[in-house]
């Protein structure tokens, strides 16, 4: 039973993203950085490296290793979050690392480490997608060789309706949440998770919807980088 175009809690249309803004190069001490505001999410990503590997036994002789840390600030949630790295943060660090890894040309930096630090200043639903967008912008800002940027967006099912970009309230009341990350120029998917149940038709629709969301976010990532490097001239990309 699918009702058409019922009102979402936030008042958005089913295929509407939250307000997103990305800014590149916000931290001077890091080699590359980005700040993303994704609805109520506020996430900062900083990239250091390539640099020497510590501890030394983790070094790989023919390629770089990638260290990724996703962390939520104690004040990022409604009730204070303990500042220790939780099980959930370890898991998200891993999926973000694996989502970014295919884009980075690790063979260009043998015996080095590339460190990605992600801090969630304020959290809402979909923080892993927002974090991936920020981290890939920060990687490009750090001048690390990449095959492509990485763009992430979620789709899901709320009140029987397939919607784009599930936020926190919708995630709790809804039936499914499906974050994906992809390389926008080739369309290769690097992160795929599905929490909940979707029928075959709903799944196809949700995947299509998430891809359109990724397209919009890719443009915003490009805007953020071209603002910093080309005075707002948007590369050579045809709009």
């Amino acid at each position: 039973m699918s009702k058409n175009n019922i009102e979402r809690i936030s008042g958005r249309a089913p295929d509407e993203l939250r307000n997103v803004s990305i800014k590149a190069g916000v931290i001077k001490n890091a080699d590359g950085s980005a700040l993303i505001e994704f609805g109520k999410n506020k996430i900062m990503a900083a990239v250091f490296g390539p640099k020497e590997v510590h501890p030394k036994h983790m070094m790989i002789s023919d390629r770089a290793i990638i260290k990724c840390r996703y962390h939520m600030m104690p004040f990022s949630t409604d009730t204070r979050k303990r500042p220790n790295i939780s099980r959930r943060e370890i898991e998200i660090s891993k999926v973000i690392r694996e989502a970014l890894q295919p884009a980075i040309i690790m063979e260009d930096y043998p015996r080095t480490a590339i460190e990605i630090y992600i801090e969630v200043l304020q959290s809402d639903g979909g923080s892993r997608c927002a974090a991936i967008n920020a981290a890939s912008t920060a990687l490009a800002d750090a001048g690390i060789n990449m095959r492509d940027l990485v763009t992430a967006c979620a789709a899901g099912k709320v009140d029987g309706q397939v919607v784009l970009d599930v936020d926190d309230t919708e995630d709790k009341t809804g039936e499914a949440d499906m974050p994906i990350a992809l390389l926008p120029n080739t369309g290769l998917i690097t992160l795929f998770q599905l929490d909940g149940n979707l029928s075959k038709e709903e799944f196809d629709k949700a995947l299509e919807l998430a891809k359109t969301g990724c397209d919009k976010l890719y443009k915003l990532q490009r805007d953020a980088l071209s603002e910093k490097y080309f005075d707002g001239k948007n590369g050579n990309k045809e709009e």
Partner: protein
Amino acid sequence: MKTNSVERKYVMPGDVVIEGDHNPIANVIKSGNKIISTKIGMAEIAYNGVRVIPLNGTYIPRMDDVVIGKVADMNGFAWEVDINSWFFGILTGSAVFGRQFSSSRDSMKSQFDKGECLIAKILSFDRTRDPLISVSGPGLGKIKEGEIAYITSSKIPRVIGKKGAMIKLIEENTGCRMTIGQNGAILLKGTDEARTKARNAIKLIGNQAHTSDLNDKVISLISK
């Protein structure tokens, strides 16, 4: 295809620079018959191939580059020099004292101590080992006076300019002597005022390296 014209455009990682049979030179990868950029920068399509001049990134040591570094650590056999790259440059004792070097006889500290700066040349580097550096040669050795300014290493060619035009322009107009390290460190020697002017000029080049008429901008900044 025209032989001497060079086509330029801004690119980001993942952008297709050009399609067709071209020779990838630097910061691009070939995927099928597409040439794809791997960095943010200015793509140059010339008759001999395609390259991207990056606008950011860490310095990658190359043989025979002159670099400016700071002694970060030392042991009985070698100095580790911070050359603004992924690895420390290794200056061996025998490169300074000669073949007869013996760690018991020669005092390492008599030559370079921790925190001292030096101008050196990269002897070898191939990413499998730390870069080896040497201080024997004209103009190389310990830095005794001056100050060091930093810029992204990919912008060093703009500081030098065509056949040294920019460096000459800054030196003549400020009275400040500059020694350029390919790792993005520039040694400035001169009066306080001269150094400040030169430092500001370098900062301007760092911010506006990708724009045209850089010469005029630098002149107007210095003569202010």
